[in-house]
């Protein structure tokens, strides 16, 4: 296959970027999208040009490091996969492919297609945990958890933190991402003691990072490579309002929660 690529190039956070056109030649349909970019980068390198920089690591769809806005969609045209699992057989010979970084204020570009997603880490740091120290915990089987609850918590916990939900959203909302962790811990007995403070702290940090609100479009759910559902957002809203209306007095000042 031969393809035309239109790629966002940007030297660093301070520089102005632009779209640059490249040819990708002799591409096998069995290559992954990132392997196709590897081929282009090898040829750029041999010419002494700077390769196109993009984030990637595990290349098996689980680390959440790869991103890319491909032809206007996060992780490209196929449902429920990351860019590294997208294969060139999903494109046709002669096609022009547009590749951009995630576009959102809280995800500033670092270089080319690489963006800074540390805002996601800061949201998790604000409350995405159960406050237990190592050691001194009870036996793992002491609290039975209904299988349906455990399975549903697992479904929420499969979020890979890639940021596709934010990239897909016209408001650059991170509600799907935040609600996945809030739901996982909110459903499990281990997460109950901090359930109300957690949701407030995480939402406060999400707001402080500059992510937008949810207007129920559902683009995040449609584009999520792990198929995290909008139900999570409902659960988070429910917990957030419960916390605000009935339980805010239990929250320490330093764990967020301000309106």
């Amino acid at each position, binding site marked *: 296959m031969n393809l035309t690529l239109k790629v966002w190039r940007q030297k660093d956070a301070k520089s102005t970027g632009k779209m640059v056109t490249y040819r990708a030649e002799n591409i096998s349909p069995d290559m992954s999208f990132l392997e196709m970019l590897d081929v282009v980068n090898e040829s750029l390198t041999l010419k002494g040009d700077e390769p196109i920089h993009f984030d990637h690591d595990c290349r098996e769809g689980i680390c959440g490091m790869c991103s890319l806005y491909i032809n206007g969609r996060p992780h490209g045209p196929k449902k429920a996969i990351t860019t590294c699992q997208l294969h060139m057989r999903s494109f046709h010979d002669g096609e022009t492919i547009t590749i951009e970084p995630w576009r959102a204020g809280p995800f500033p570009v670092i270089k080319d297609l690489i963006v800074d997603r*540390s805002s996601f880490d800061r949201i998790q740091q604000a409350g995405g945990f159960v406050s237990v120290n*190592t050691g001194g915990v009870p036996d793992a089987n002491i609290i039975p958890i209904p299988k349906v609850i455990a399975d549903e918590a697992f479904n929420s916990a499969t979020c890979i933190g890639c940021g596709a939900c934010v990239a897909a959203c016209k408001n650059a909302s991170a509600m799907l991402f935040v609600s996945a962790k809030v739901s996982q811990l909110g459903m499990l007995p281990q997460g109950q003691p901090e359930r109300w403070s957690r949701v407030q702290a995480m939402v406060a940090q999400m707001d402080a990072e500059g992510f937008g609100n949810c207007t129920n479009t559902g683009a995040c759910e449609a584009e999520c490579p792990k198929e995290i559902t909008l139900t999570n957002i409902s659960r988070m809203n429910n917990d957030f309002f419960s916390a605000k209306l009935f339980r805010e007095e239990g929250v320490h000042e330093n764990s967020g929660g301000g309106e």
Partner: protein
Amino acid sequence: MSLDAKIPQGPLAEKWSKHKFNLKLVNPANKRKYDVIVVGTGLAGASAAASLAELGYNVKAFCFQDSPRRAHSIAAQGGINAAKNYQNDGDSVYRLFYDTIKGGDYRAREGNVYRLAEVSVNIIDQCVAQGVPFAREYGGLLDNRSFGGSQVSRTFYARGQTGQQLLLGAYSALNRQIHKGTVKMYTRTEMLDVVTVDGQAKGIITRNLTTGEIDTHTGHAVLLCTGGYGNVFYLSTNAIGSNVTAAWRAHKRGAFFANPCYTQIHPTCIPVTGDHQSKLTLMSESLRNDGRVWAPKTVEVAEKLRKKEITADQVKEDERDYFLERKYPSFGNLVPRDVASRNAKEMVDEGRGVGGSGFAVFLDFADAIKRLGQEAVAAKYGNLFDMYYQITDEDPYKQPMRIYPAVHYTMGGLWVDYNLSTNVPGLYALGECNFSDHGANRLGASALMQGLADGYFVIPYTLGDYLATIGPKPVDANNPAFAKTKQEVAERINRLLALKGTKTVNEYHRDLGHIMWEYCGMARTEEGLTKAKGLISALRADFWKNALVVGTNEEVNASLEKAGRVADFLELGELMVDDALMRRESCGGHFRLESQTEEGEALRDDDHFAFVGAWEYKGDNQPEVLNKEDLNFEFVHLTQRSYK
């Protein structure tokens, strides 16, 4: 140099508890006066950083990814072992210990492995308390499955994403400490050297992967939790960024590198399709619970399959050879990884391989789907089946998976004693980065166990002993060793950037991988290894003349990052070959064709090789010196491993 592993005396079951009592403690008020550097934030690193910070130490943690949650532990699929005996099927700490020693082909320390089995039960408790959503039964209790090399069900799992769930648990514990300010996290930061002062590790040199800035960091101790070196083979199941640089730099500063030739080739991976391929994808060992491995009985049938004249389902039952079930009736498809891999290779060597290239055998779920229904199979392995479909464009619910062995894990690593200390005081190695617990072959679902055991339950005790000994006096950042090491790092970067040859770094990496796979892979010979040594040495020399590195230091520069890592792999590769040459026996994943039983199994030579081979760096282009740590088996009787 004599190597003292510092294994405590006494009965197996009492060693660890006695040792814990004998270790010195740091009083709570003094802990905050100590700085501890943790490099790598996978299971070992994240759990260690969080646990040490909880105790009160000041922790600085580093990872090269954009977030600690990306570390490659995240990709572990199948599960984590623990001797809980929840299934009432005869498991015990002693049985997990015994299975692990035997699975490792009697090349691991009894003391370490027993401790690992002992703390395995605490790990599951810890993870559940953190909110890790393990698979459960309808009654609400935890579910288990079986893994290779054992006849009990002791593997805890979260669908095919156990590593992800465990890492996110450790990441959440780490996040809690970052939020409290007890851990300072440095992301997109790569460690490029260890600083030693008077022979003790006192800090590290890092490069900021965004700005190129070279920084020094001081610490009373340095913990390397930087994973394995499987990417020396170019194609492996490791992440693209996984590398040996931190461990290798430590090695060149004096830390011994133990058993580098012990590499694990995992039997069930998606076969290679072409030269463009950048990595290989594992299909979890858990699939062998329900999948049956087979190859056609005859070359003729295999030939027809390769030419796509027939499909797998058209091969009649009596034309199929379920070779693992046939040869190993008691363990069947659940033999250990090294055994399963070698048998798959044997089928291919006999011309009975399938798939376009002939380098594959089948992993068939037809029986399981008939027995349990597609829905039940999907519930257990759904994400793996989806992944297989994405990559191959073939539906494993309808036709068997094609699988072939691929490099997956490295049992070798930095030599450590019972306290996880390298021979350089103050420098520790945890998780896959060290060599300690898996001998010559790791059993499935034991890597997650070891990473978390080291981080949650071993280092918090053993590190205190060292810190109490050296005292809380601040590390002097003005010691000339820091400036000197930083200067050396900067010079090396400049040397790499000055390479303006004609061959990309990636091509060198691929060439190295071909050599390693061909001569230091699943089957090794004196002749092949000798040849490989020459080839690697020539490739390395060529690299430093003819490689092409673009860009500058003061920016994000993937070309430079990769060049540094490949340069280290080119040195490590030769040491692996030296180690494989030295070890004139077969054991576990190290298979010397000259040393096999009549049935083609690995034949050990306990009289001459029951030792850990720990290599000592002696300077550029100098042969490394072998130090031996004898393995003494007091409790387990050494036998020819049998899974029949």
